[in-house]
């Protein structure tokens, strides 16, 4: 399980899970799960487009994720869920058009959707680590304003925080983080890791900073168990990530219910 060809999977997986746990905490606090689902899926379409044009997939991933993030961030306010849905279907449809025009090989598509963590190359470690550090830094800078405007939007606006700028900054961070995660765990499962463990952490702990740390711990735990289980059983890693993330949430939910009924 810890042989040389697995080393890359462990390193990249851990970095990606830490980032997903951190971003996910803000996603859950701010109620932007739909955006967190739409952006990685849009990024997937970008990778398909990059293959068609003949540039590196990472360029397509980042471009599409950033465009989606800006589009969704700009429409923040009432009815942002409709704009998110429209952005999502448009990008996925573009992805379908790119794929049918370029006749890409299907396993490549599956890898982009569901991830291929066991096939992570050494060359992808450095960019993933650097960009993750950048995202973590951005989140650290925006930590207070993001929480403030999530908890009391009116008060935050009255204190001079521009909600559109803040939302845009958060969406861009989310977009770059997603673009990194997509080739590793896949477009569909980047999302599971971003919602399940953070939502559980938020139920279990009241104080924001402790919840953020717990969220990262739970996300890394989920990913480690998933990679180990995938290695042992030969089943896709995405299956374990998706189901375990939900299990973590359900356990936290049951635990709080029991605790509350006893109190």
């Amino acid at each position, binding site marked *: 399980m810890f042989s040389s060809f697995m080393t890359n999977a462990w390193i990249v997986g851990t970095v990606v899970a830490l980032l997903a746990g951190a971003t996910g905490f803000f996603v859950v606090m701010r109620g932007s799960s739909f955006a967190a689902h739409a952006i990685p899926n849009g990024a997937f379409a970008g990778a398909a487009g990059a293959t068609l044009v003949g540039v590196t997939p990472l360029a397509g991933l980042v471009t599409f994720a950033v465009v989606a993030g800006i589009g969704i961030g700009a429409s923040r306010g009432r009815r942002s869920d409709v704009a998110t849905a429209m952005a999502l279907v448009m990008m996925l449809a573009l992805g*379908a058009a790119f794929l049918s025009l370029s006749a890409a090989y299907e396993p490549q598509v599956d890898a982009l959707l569901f991830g291929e963590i066991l096939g992570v190359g050494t060359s992808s470690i450095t960019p993933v680590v650097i960009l993750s550090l950048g995202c973590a830094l951005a989140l650290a800078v925006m930590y207070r304003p993001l929480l403030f405007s999530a908890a009391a939007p009116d008060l935050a606006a009255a204190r001079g925080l521009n909600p559109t700028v803040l939302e845009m900054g958060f969406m861009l961070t989310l977009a770059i983080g997603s673009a990194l995660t997509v080739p590793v765990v896949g477009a569909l499962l980047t999302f599971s890791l971003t919602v399940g463990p953070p939502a559980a952490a938020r139920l279990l702990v009241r104080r924001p900073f402790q919840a953020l740390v717990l969220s990262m711990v739970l996300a890394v735990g989920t990913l480690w168990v998933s990679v180990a289980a995938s290695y042992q059983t030969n089943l*896709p890693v995405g299956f374990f990530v998706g*189901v375990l993330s939900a299990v973590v949430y359900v356990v936290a939910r049951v635990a709080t219910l029991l605790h509350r009924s006893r109190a």
Partner: protein
Amino acid sequence: MHWLVEPGLWSNAAVRTGVGVGAVVAIVSAMVGLFTVIRGQSFAGHALADVALSGGAGSNALGFSPLAGFVVGALVGAGAMEAVGVERVRQRDVATGVVLGAATGLSALFLYLITLNSSSTGSTQLILFGSLFSVSAPTFLVVLALSVLVCLALAVIGRPLLFASLSSDAAAARGVSVTRLALCYTLLMAVTVGLSAIVIGAVLSTALLIGPPAAALRLGRRMSMTLVVAATFGVAAVLVGVVVSYDSYYWWPSHRALPVSFCVVALVVAEFVVASLVRRLTTRKSSA
């Protein structure tokens, strides 16, 4: 006409079935979607399509009828979303996300099992993106029957549902059972979305559910009028999309046609953008 519609369009059986199914699904989606947009449940509407597909893939992997799989998948997904918690908007967001995450995990497993057991390719793309042109004639009848049932159910709960959607407290005070209505509506949406997802793909299903009603709501206020406009937008996007996709076969020397899902979605998004622009221009004029 020859320059507009390439020859042989209407004599093609796949095209005729595709247009029929597309039109029926567009009308039902517009009606159900109107409430989805008003209630702010776009995320749930999209998630249920993915959940239903997970059920469809599961029954495919286990050897049951896909239709049964999608119904069970969608209904279980809808029930789970309502069970996890719907009291506050932000909580509903998380509940939808957790259910969607679990369902995609299961999809990954089922699709893996399918590729192990068969040599067929293209299943992932067909499940996600679908194609109007691959609908069979018997499926058309099932879609038609279920659509009629959904419309009847919507006619029964439509009025109280609209009341509860616009002001939940007032409706509760007047004796409307708001939570039970919400559960009924989510189940109804699950059947509609699941049905259209398995027939025309998850992407197109969400596009037809949200796009035309959102565009119609930006243009008009009266409910009956909005219903008609939304259904017209949906059907128009399907019809024009089919024609464009069919014609696009002749556009490139490589003869790679644009997928019909892409053409329809692009038209739906265009309708939404134009309607938003019209709305913005007219409100600015009236306030000036």
